[in-house]
């Protein structure tokens, strides 16, 4: 049974197809691990054994009848930002602490249709605003590699759950690095698709022009399988793209001979820890052995991505989060004088400090007299940042560099200074502003904690990017390492 804890999705799928294990047995295995290890890690906000086992029984029936899909019967965990009908969906906030979603997000709908078994809902930074999981109303998530360290954020619960093998895979969302940075800090493979590939319907909105859902798993191959199930046109998301379905596994095994990897000068300067740099350099050496060449490229405006993001994302958040008014759903204050007071008190009580800060910044940069100076200016800078990537991709096929400037940091290390925390996403944010696909793959260790290598591809270059990741994972085993289990 323990073989399945660290197995790939293909291995699990084969075992299910050959009746070596049933979905109910597999689901029970992971539910038991959650019961045993989650009290320490706090990776899940909600676990529902009955719902999970009911879905597993249904999957077993499908497997028995034949005609099941590849992922049928495989358990997974959802970031608690995805609405799932009948499941409490909190978004890591007191505002939604008792909210039971009345409908499924498109991603949940699609993964259910693929026969996957939802185990529960993962902890996260409140409304996906954070890089350490410390802003969750439900308490911080511990990094399975070192419980004194953060798992990264905002999809920190998803990352910790998969890293500790409490689930074979998980969903995440990425607005400025929220899949890639926790994947790096927990030693996982995580992928943010091209903007518009995965529907945002039922995914609680933070910054709508940047938010994308994506898979977090143990390997590029697992991510390719999951992305195939998650992606697809959805008329209920006005920015969902109408494109033919893709098999993201199609190019996994292609040789890397002739691949040109662009190394942005700006990502290899000061600011990156020496241990991270050593691991990234070693990964690049491995790629050269695989037949790739590396070329220096430049993203001259990438240094402006964090400040541009902290105008655009809060502006969009202040608008999106205005829906939490204590009228139709969510927290309502117990005492108030009138309607305005009810709004102000409900929101003051329901939102945590970081969410309030971003709403206030967003309100300010959109307010009369400041819109042009801040919001419009940031949108112009965003175009410069996106254009840099287009220029760089003229001389390379993919871009590589560090995912985060350091390995996982200690709790409290950056929480007192918001700007220091924002700089955790210095290498990931530009990718969201440009709408490009990006991923993080494990490439070594520093201070006994995982280091992530970031890959970025041109728009819709997911299959090629996954190929680049997969070939590396065939000749290295960083992605297969798992943290030691805490003594029982």
């Amino acid at each position: 049974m323990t073989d399945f804890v660290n197995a790939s999705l293909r291995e699990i799928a084969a075992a299910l197809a050959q009746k070596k294990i049933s979905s109910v047995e597999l689901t029970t295995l992971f539910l038991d691990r959650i019961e045993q290890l989650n009290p320490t890690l706090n990776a899940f906000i909600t676990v529902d054994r009955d719902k999970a086992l009911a879905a597993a029984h249904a999957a077993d029936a499908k497997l028995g009848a034949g005609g099941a899909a590849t992922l049928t019967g495989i358990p997974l965990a959802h970031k608690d930002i995805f609405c799932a009908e009948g499941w409490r969906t909190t978004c890591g906030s007191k505002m939604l602490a008792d909210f039971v979603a009345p409908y499924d997000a498109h991603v949940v709908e699609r993964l259910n249709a693929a026969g996957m078994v939802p185990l529960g809902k993962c902890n996260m930074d409140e409304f996906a605003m954070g890089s350490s999981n410390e802003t969750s109303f439900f308490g911080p998530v511990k990094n399975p590699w070192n419980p004194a360290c953060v798992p990264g954020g905002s999809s920190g619960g998803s990352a910790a759950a998969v890293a500790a093998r409490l689930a074979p895979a998980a969903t995440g969302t990425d607005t400025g690095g929220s899949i890639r940075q926790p994947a790096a800090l927990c030693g996982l493979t995580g992928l943010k698709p091209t903007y518009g590939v995965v529907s945002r319907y039922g995914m609680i909105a933070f910054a709508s022009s940047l938010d994308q859902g994506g898979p977090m798993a143990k390997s590029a191959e697992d991510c390719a399988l999951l992305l195939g199930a998650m992606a697809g046109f959805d008329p209920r998301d006005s920015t969902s793209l109408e494109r033919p379905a893709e098999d993201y596994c199609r190019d996994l095994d292609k040789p890397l001979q002739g691949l040109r990897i662009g190394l942005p000068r700006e990502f290899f300067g000061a600011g990156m820890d020496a241990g991270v740099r050593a691991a990234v350099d070693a990964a690049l050496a491995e790629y050269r052995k695989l037949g790739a060449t590396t070329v220096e490229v430049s993203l001259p405006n990438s240094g402006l991505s964090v400040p541009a993001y902290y105008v655009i994302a809060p502006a969009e958040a202040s608008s999106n989060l205005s829906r939490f008014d204590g009228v139709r759903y969510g927290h309502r204050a117990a005492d108030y004088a009138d309607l305005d007071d009810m709004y102000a008190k409900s929101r003051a009580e329901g939102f945590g400090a970081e969410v309030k800060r971003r709403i206030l910044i967003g309100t300010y940069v959109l307010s009369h007299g400041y819109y042009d100076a801040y919001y419009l200016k940031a949108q112009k800078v965003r175009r410069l940042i996106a254009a840099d990537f287009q220029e760089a991709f003229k001389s390379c096929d993919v871009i590589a560099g560090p995912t985060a400037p350091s390995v996982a940091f200690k709790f409290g290390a950056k929480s007192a200074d918001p700007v220091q925390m924002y700089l955790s996403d210095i290498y990931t944010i530009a990718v969201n502003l440009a709408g490009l696909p990006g991923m993080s793959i494990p490439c070594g260790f520093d201070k006994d904690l995982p280091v992530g290598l970031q890959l970025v591809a041109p728009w819709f270059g997911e299959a090629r990017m996954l190929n680049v990741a997969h070939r590396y994972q065939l000749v290295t085993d960083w992605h297969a390492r798992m943290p030691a289990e805490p003594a029982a």
Partner: protein
Amino acid sequence: MSLSLDDVSRIARLARIEISPAEAEQTRAQLNGILAFIEQLQAVDTDGIEPMAHAVDVVQRLRSDSVTETDRRDAFQVIAPETEAGLYLVPKVIE
């Protein structure tokens, strides 16, 4: 520019978030820290650059003007803080 305590309470009022006098000073300091950080955008030459609102340039889709949703009033109202006879209840706004 730097925000005053009055600015902070004006922004909080616009955002419909109550801020106690005790929180106001810390909020002011943190917002000013963030604003100082984003101030570096002002130095960038963006003459002639079109603002970029979205990552992918797509035209808004139109759908046919037909009913596609079913009536799920009960399911949506069961999660509301206060309802009566199919209506959401709020404090009186018109005397």
